[in-house]
């Protein structure tokens, strides 16, 4: 029997496996985070961004884009948010922060680590979201009244996520060094 010429064979490469693995981890964090009660709509820790930061530092911007966008798409499907306003907000936020990450990753590595990337990306994220919210969802300047709250949340969660990402990245190198952990 001859093989049908219309049959399409997809062979996942090592790249695909890597992206899929990291995206899966990010999706798990997104779903887990949805269980955390939040005092204000729109303020979220964004734990999945830890994965984006690690992927960016280890594998580059292209992989980070894949992981972040797959996470937004699958995360929204799992939470029943696909094509709802929240999906577009998180999509625009992700696109904005990925654009900023693409620029921020070229900052001198000696001075700027994952914490800088994380805080800058968090600010780009809220910037994009507030803009979309103002133009489309709440066409009123009252949206800007919440900007200071969002900015503070971006600073705190940007710092926390960045520190966790930095630690994950360093842990790999530290395993060869003598243990310097607190007792």
């Amino acid at each position, binding site marked *: 029997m001859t093989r049908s010429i219309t049959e399409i064979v997809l062979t996942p490469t090592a790249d695909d496996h890597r992206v899929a693995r990291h995206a899966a981890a990010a999706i798990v964090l997104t779903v887990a985070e949805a269980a955390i009660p939040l005092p204000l709509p729109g303020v979220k820790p964004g734990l999945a961004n830890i994965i984006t930061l690690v992927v960016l530092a280890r594998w580059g911007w292209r992989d980070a884009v894949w992981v972040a966008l797959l996470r937004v798409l699958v995360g929204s499907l799992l939470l029943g948010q696909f094509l709802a306003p929240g999906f577009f907000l998180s999509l625009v936020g992700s696109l904005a922060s990925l654009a900023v990450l693409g620029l921020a990753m070229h*900052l*001198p590595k*000696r*001075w*700027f*680590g*994952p*914490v*800088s990337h994380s*805080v*800058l990306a968090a*600010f780009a994220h809220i910037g994009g979201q507030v803009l979309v919210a103002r133009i489309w969802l709440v066409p009123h300047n009252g949206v*800007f*009244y919440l*900007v*200071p709250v969002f*900015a*503070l949340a*971006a*600073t705190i969660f*940007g*710092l926390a996520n*960045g*520190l966790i990402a*930095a*630690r994950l990245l*360093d842990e790999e190198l530290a395993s060869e060094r003598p243990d310097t*952990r*607190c007792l």
Partner: protein
Amino acid sequence: MIDLPALRCWLGAWAAHLKAGDVLVLGCALALCVLSALSLWKGGRPDKAIIRSGGTVFAEVDLSMPRIVEVPGPLGTTRVEIQPGRARVASDPGPRQYCVRQGWLHTAGAVAICAPNQVSLALSGRNADYDSLNY
């Protein structure tokens, strides 16, 4: 009791991941938070003084430059003094001087009424906390 040395060691372990540029970025982020709060949450700050005489609006004055507005009334002239961000009735020919003794008005919605001379001074702002404030 909090175990202080352990806490310091724990914080130090996290701080080791901060680089000089990271601290700079964090400083800028915090400054942005404070600046946005100061510029967006200035509710109650007035931007305009509305002076009425005999029930009709006599003048609407911007509260950006100092000036003195003289308002004629049935008893004489009421002098309204404007300064950046505040306004007051400086002098009034009325017998009891209630509106003069009210002093400077700072908040949007504050009103000083010189009833005998039929003059009133009111401050208005974009996001006023009160519709009207009298003392």
